């Protein structure tokens, strides 16, 4: 069989123009699709930054909450209720909201404010400067040194500012695993200070973070919270819910899906069309092979091999190109949200396989109808 495949390869490479068109067409499609889906996965991952960074096992929230950014405040008594649910090891409140920062130079800048439970500081970020206990000092905030840090004028320990007309001072500089999507700097403080200084609604508690006594207790906690008219989600469930919100309830998901489909259709039509032209151009040659004694199955193998070779080449180049561009983007824009995951690699691979197989199928249908008698006709 390998000799026949070498022959197929030589026929394919014989027509340089079509070979390049095929590879470039598939490369382009894979590139587009990889870029689209990587951006999408990147956006989704960053949009779930708070779930990852805070790291609670269970999040209790109002049933209408879709994402960590859009919390619906819950009454304070819910904290005690949740604490009394069987299986709950401990439960702490979390404030997640926005504040308006006035910098020393008079400029305004919106910021995400995370208020951590005063007693435990559960979900606190690791500090690169300052000490954890300093968060209890007057008006103390920790600032996250991420891509948006400079928007607060790159504050140092001791830098003062105003937040919602209250005084604030930087008492620590922190890092987090995943940067925020929304281009806002992040400030951490205590729940007490956050809820005193910032909100204007009657209720202030954004989430209750729960640690179950054991993994087996999770389902019972969820049922109990549900019975109270609230929702308890594991971190993974909350992430999925957040993903689904961006996928299905914003225009983003649909647009990315459409772009991905378009790149698929473009790739398929370029590759399918070119491959069919290639087959038509070589009809006489395949006819001669048939006349000399190639079996139909051998011609089918040749065509599949040819289409898979261009498919995998295009896949390789497309992935290279997309990851190159994403790496470049990350170099230039610090929190450029794009990640190549096994998921989108897999999707692109499936797409390339479909393109290859469909192109091959179109060619094969034509090849199998060749009458080897053509070789006797001039």
């Amino acid at each position: 069989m390998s000799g026949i495949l070498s022959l197929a390869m030589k026929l394919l490479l014989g027509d340089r123009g079509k070979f390049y068109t095929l590879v470039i067409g598939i490369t382009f499609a894979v590139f587009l699709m990889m870029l689209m889906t990587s951006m999408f996965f990147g956006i989704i991952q960053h949009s779930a930054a708070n779930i990852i960074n805070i790291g609670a096992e269970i999040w209790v929230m109002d049933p209408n909450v879709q994402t960590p950014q859009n919390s619906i405040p819950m009454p304070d008594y819910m904290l005690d209720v949740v604490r009394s649910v069987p299986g709950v090891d401990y439960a702490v409140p979390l404030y997640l909201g926005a504040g308006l920062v006035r910098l020393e130079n008079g400029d305004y800048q919106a910021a995400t404010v995370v208020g951590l439970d005063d007693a435990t500081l559960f979900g606190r970020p690791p500090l690169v400067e300052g000490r954890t206990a300093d968060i209890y000092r007057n008006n103390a905030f920790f600032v996250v040194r991420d891509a948006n840090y400079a928007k607060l004028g790159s504050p140092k320990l001791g830098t003062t500012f105003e937040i919602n007309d209250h005084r604030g001072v930087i008492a620590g500089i922190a890092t987090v695993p995943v940067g925020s999507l929304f281009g806002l700097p992040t400030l951490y403080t205590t729940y007490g200070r956050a809820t005193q200084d910032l909100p204007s609604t009657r209720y202030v508690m954004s989430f209750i973070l729960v640690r179950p006594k054991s993994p087996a207790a999770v389902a019972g906690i969820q049922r109990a919270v549900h019975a109270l008219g609230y929702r308890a989600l594991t971190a993974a469930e909350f992430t999925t819910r957040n993903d689904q919100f961006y996928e299905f309830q914003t225009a983003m998901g649909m647009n990315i899906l459409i772009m991905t489909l378009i790149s698929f259709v473009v790739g398929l039509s370029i590759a399918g069309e070119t491959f069919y032209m290639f087959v038509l151009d070589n009809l006489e040659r395949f006819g001669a092979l048939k006349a000399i004694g190639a079996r139909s199955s051998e011609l089918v193998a040749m065509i599949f091999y040819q289409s898979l070779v261009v498919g995998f080449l295009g896949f390789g180049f497309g992935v290279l190109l997309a990851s190159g561009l994403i790496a470049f983007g990350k170099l230039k824009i610090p929190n450029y949200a794009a990640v190549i995951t096994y998921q989108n690699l897999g999707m692109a691979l499936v797409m390339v396989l479909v393109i290859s197989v469909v192109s091959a199928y179109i060619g094969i249908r034509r090849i199998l109808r060749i009458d080897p008698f053509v070789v006797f006709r001039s």
Partner: protein
Amino acid sequence: MILTVDRVTKWFGEDPTRTYALRDVSFGVDHQEMLYIVGPSGSGKTTLLSVISGILRPNAGTVTVEGKDIWNLSADDLADFRLHTLGFVFQDYHLFPRLTTAENVAVPLVLRRVRWRDSLRKAREVLEVVGLADKAELPPPRLSGGEQQRVAIARAIVAEPDLLVLDEPTASLDGDTGKRIIEFVKTRILEAHRAIIVVTHDDRIYQFATRIIHMEDGRIVDRAEAVA
């Protein structure tokens, strides 16, 4: 008999406009025969050649090659029959322009699952026999018409077929080249267990035939005229 053709009829098209290319054709070919099929253009020679080489299915009649009723074989067996028993030289050569000359000659061996490298070695040997050793690495379009014809012949004989069929092998060659090539084929290929069928209307090469059959309007006329 290496080949027996029995009452073969072949028509093209549907009923009212049916044209008969072959009408009730019967003949046989023996080992060591170099049979010529001659006749005017449109008399059915190419059609006959296609039917006996398992490429064009007749409407009636049987073709038996080495005891096998070839039109009762499955598609794969028919392909194997062509691969293992026949060697073809097509009127237009049908060489692969993007392969080298040696690779072209190697194709039947590659299809027979001979390893690529061994196929190429054998192909170069055969190219030496047809006097084209120095052109082995060139693509056919860089060769002259006569040289391409010899490449086609090399490809037809590389797997040592029992039955060699040539369709108008000298149509695009000058007289001398044509003669030399046919003489070469006859002296080098025609061994005890082999036979050659040549379709032609080039009377300059009739001298090499062991027997000539004439065709006219899909029929054999003036049977078995011995020449050589």
